[in-house]
């Protein structure tokens, strides 16, 4: 008897919290389907009986969401691929090769974790101008094409391969590149996937840096694009919210598809230390 009351109470709490958590998202969806006048109407509409879908197409073209999303996808995918490549290579060297200054160089990689990008924006902004990269893809990609955390996590993961696998490959005559491609990469898919998702999300969610180094619609990422969108008139809030939903949708999809890797990637820092 007591247990069933407690279970019921637990459900009540769970439902209330779920409603609170979901409410902003729900109302954003509702308002994106209303007209500007309907949004301002009082009492407010909490369920769109006659949803209007044109706000999405308006956000896509008039609000440039299509362009922003394309830029974001290009930037995030290329940044992820680049960070993955440089991290895998460096992590392999640190895990499997002996060379002079190895420890110092690894310490330098770890030291980069102590330097958040926010701290170095002033000289980096100048570097981008000097390189002539203002308003270009390289400005959005290259500074993040190497990752201290990526090198660290992948090296840890690589080192967990049994030493005998490496010995056996050496005896069988496999060179380092072939060992990397045939053995190390396939056996570390989980960590590589987790880091890829982490890198993609970090890149996708960047705000300050893209704001600094771009000023044209053609090279604005979607996060910064939302800033442009926010500046629309109050009676165009349906378009603002439609754009926001379009901006969030890809990540919701990724979350849905890669749930496990995502959790692993996000908690990797916490678990691995």
């Amino acid at each position: 008897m007591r247990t069933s009351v407690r279970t019921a109470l637990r459900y009540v709490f769970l439902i209330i919290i779920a409603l609170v958590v979901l409410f902003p998202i729900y109302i954003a969806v509702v308002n994106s389907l209303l007209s500007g006048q309907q949004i301002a109407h009082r009492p407010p509409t909490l369920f769109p009986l006659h949803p209007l879908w044109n706000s999405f197409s308006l956000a896509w073209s008039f609000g440039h969401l299509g362009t922003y999303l394309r830029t974001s996808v290009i930037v995030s995918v290329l940044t992820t691929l680049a960070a993955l490549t440089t991290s895998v290579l460096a992590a392999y060297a640190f895990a499997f090769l002996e060379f002079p200054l190895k420890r110092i160089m690894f310490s330098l990689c770890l030291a980069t974790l102590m330097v958040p990008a926010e701290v170095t924006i002033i000289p980096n902004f100048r570097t981008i101008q000097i390189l002539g990269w203002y308003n270009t893809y390289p400005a959005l990609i290259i500074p993040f094409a190497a990752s201290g955390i990526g090198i660290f996590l992948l090296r840890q993961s690589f080192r967990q391969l049994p030493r005998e696998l490496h010995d056996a490959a050496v005896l069988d005559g496999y060179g380092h590149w072939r060992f990397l491609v045939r053995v190390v990469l396939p056996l570390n898919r989980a960590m590589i996937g987790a880091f890829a998702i982490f890198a993609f999300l970090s890149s996708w969610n960047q705000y300050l840096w893209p704001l600094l180094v771009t000023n044209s619609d053609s090279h604005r990422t979607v996060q910064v694009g939302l800033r442009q969108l926010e500046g629309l008139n109050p009676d165009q809030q349906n378009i603002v919210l439609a754009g926001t939903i379009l901006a969030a949708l890809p990540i919701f999809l990724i979350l849905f598809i890669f749930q496990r890797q995502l959790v692993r990637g996000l908690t990797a820092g916490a678990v691995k230390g």
Partner: protein
Amino acid sequence: MASTAISLESVNKRYGSTVALDSLNLQVEPGEFFVLLGPSGCGKTTALRIVAGLETPTTGTVRIGDRVVNDIEPKDRDVAMVFQNYALYPHLTVRRNIEFPLRARRVSSHERERRVMEVAESLQLEDQLNRKPGQLSGGQRQRVALARAIVREPNVFVMDEPLSNLDARLRVEMRAELIDLHLKNGTTVLYVTHDQVEAMTMGDRIAILKDGVLQQVGTPKDVYDRPANTFVAGFIGNPPMNLMPGELLGEPGMIVGIRPENVFLDDNGSIETRVTLVESLGHEHHVACRLNYDNETIVFVRVPSTVSQVPGIGESIRLSITEPLYHFDSVTLERKAIKT
């Protein structure tokens, strides 16, 4: 044909200040099943890895056949290795695992297929070829590891405790299989183990190492019957040889050794003892007795199960002994040959 298959000449290996191998000399004959035996940390695995080329000796010469291989890459030494934990690639099927070394050597696919099938057949792995190592039993994994070594048709096999991860029954089975395999293809094997039973049953010759120093090399019979020192005497045989202070022809400062099977329960025996422990193994009993005249010394007796009266713990019993007795210098611990 070369006179030796593997030879180590004055091989030293140091890691910083620790000495892993101290001036090791070994000659392995072609076609021999040669066992490196010793407790963990004695340097036997280091010696094996030096032969394979996975470690470089600090000083000394390593030869495989007639060739000095110090400067030869592991892959060019024609040595195949079997690892303690199998070292199978978990993401590859059994077939891909076995042909892995052949792919590295760019053997044609036709030839690869032929050799994989041949080896798989001889090790009864035909039905497992498309499975992954994770789906195999311990014994099957061990066979795949062997297959991967054999498929290379190397000059020399080196094996690093290949049976130590198997359960007791499988180990006995695989032991027989390995001997059988060796008899069939006659390739030189350098085999590392800490298990003296494996060494005694499989080895043509055994080298016993302790703390990086070679203690003795010989056939199983040699090392059992004529142990070079107290370490070898105590390491080989179960229960180990009884060692106690004594004298030789009136000369004190000796350690006297006697094998447990040369000690007998004998009501008329001259040695008075008290039983401290009895282990029954079924086919025989191991009885540990404390000497009455020297409370420090415990003597093990092997009692066949045919003896009906097995003494109980705490019981006073008498023992008698027969030849051979072994005598060791209590300072150098070396065995003294007795002129008789």
